[in-house]
C-alpha cells in the first residue's frame, strides 16, 4: 500500500530494462511516463519493459507505450514488452497491441528479439 508501484532500471547487453512492480493506473502512470522519457532523453532507445510483477494495467498505463513508441522507433530504438501475466495480457490482447508491439514471453526472449528485429515493422 505504501509503495503501490515501482520501477527498477537495469542494463543488459546495451539494452535498457525497466522492470515494473505493482499497478499501473491513472495514478501511477505519470511515474512510468517519466521513466520512459528519461531513457529517451538519455539516448537509451532499446527499451525492454519487464512486466512479470505488474499486477494491473489500465489505459493510462497503455497510453505511455502508445505515445512514445513512434518517436523511439524513428530514432532507431524500440519498446519490447515481456513477462505479461494472463490478467494483464488480456488487456493488451483485446486492444490489438500484439500487432503494434513485440510482446514476448520473458526477458531472454526480449533480448533475443532485439537481436532478430531491432525495430518492429508495422
Amino acid at each position, binding site marked *: 500500500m505504501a509503495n503501490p508501484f515501482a520501477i527498477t532500471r537495469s542494463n543488459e547487453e546495451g539494452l535498457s530494462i525497466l522492470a515494473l512492480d505493482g499497478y499501473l493506473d491513472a495514478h501511477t502512470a505519470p511515474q512510468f511516463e517519466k521513466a520512459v522519457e528519461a531513457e529517451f532523453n538519455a539516448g537509451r532507445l532499446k527499451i525492454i519493459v519487464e512486466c512479470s510483477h505488474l499486477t494491473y494495467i489500465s*489505459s493510462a498505463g497503455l497510453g505511455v507505450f*502508445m505515445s512514445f513508441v513512434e518517436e523511439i522507433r524513428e530514432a532507431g530504438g524500440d519498446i519490447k514488452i515481456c513477462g505479461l501475466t494472463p*490478467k494483464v495480457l*488480456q*488487456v493488451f490482447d483485446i486492444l490489438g497491441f500484439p500487432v503494434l508491439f513485440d510482446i514476448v514471453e520473458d526477458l531472454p526472449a526480449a533480448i533475443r528479439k532485439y537481436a532478430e528485429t531491432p525495430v518492429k515493422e508495422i
Partner: protein
Amino acid sequence: MASMERTFALHVPSSTENLALIREFVAAVGVQAGFSPKELGQLELAVDEACANVIEHAYGCDGTKEVTVRAMFDDDSLHIEVIDTGKAFDPGMIQQVEVGTLVSDRKSGGLGMRLMKSFMDEVHYHMVPGEKNELRMVKRLQKG
C-alpha cells in the same frame, strides 16, 4: 437458490489515488457475485476506466468532488453505476479511433471507453442535466 439482490456502494473523493480502492471494492463484490479471476480483472478495469474518466474529464482533475460506485448483483448479472456531479458530455459524439492510428498520432489516450465496451455486456450513459451523470454497466454471469 432464490435470486436475491445484494447492493453495495462506495463514495470516495475524486482523486486517482482512490482508483485502487475502487478496484478492491469491485473485485470484492465480483467475487461474491461468482465471477472468475479473469472476469474480475475485466470488471476492475472497466470500472477503473469509468472512474478515471470522471476524475479527469467530468471533474477536470478537481480532487475535492465525489465519485460514487454502486454495485448490485443477483444470480444473472452484476450491475455497476458510476455517478458524478461534474460536467456532462455527449458520448455519441466521441469517435473511436483505431489503436494503430492513436500510436501514429502519438496519443496517450482514447482507449478507456473501448475497454469498458469490450469487457462489459452493456454500457449506457444517463445524464440528468444539473444534477448528476450516471454510467450504467452490466456484466452477465456465465452459467456453467
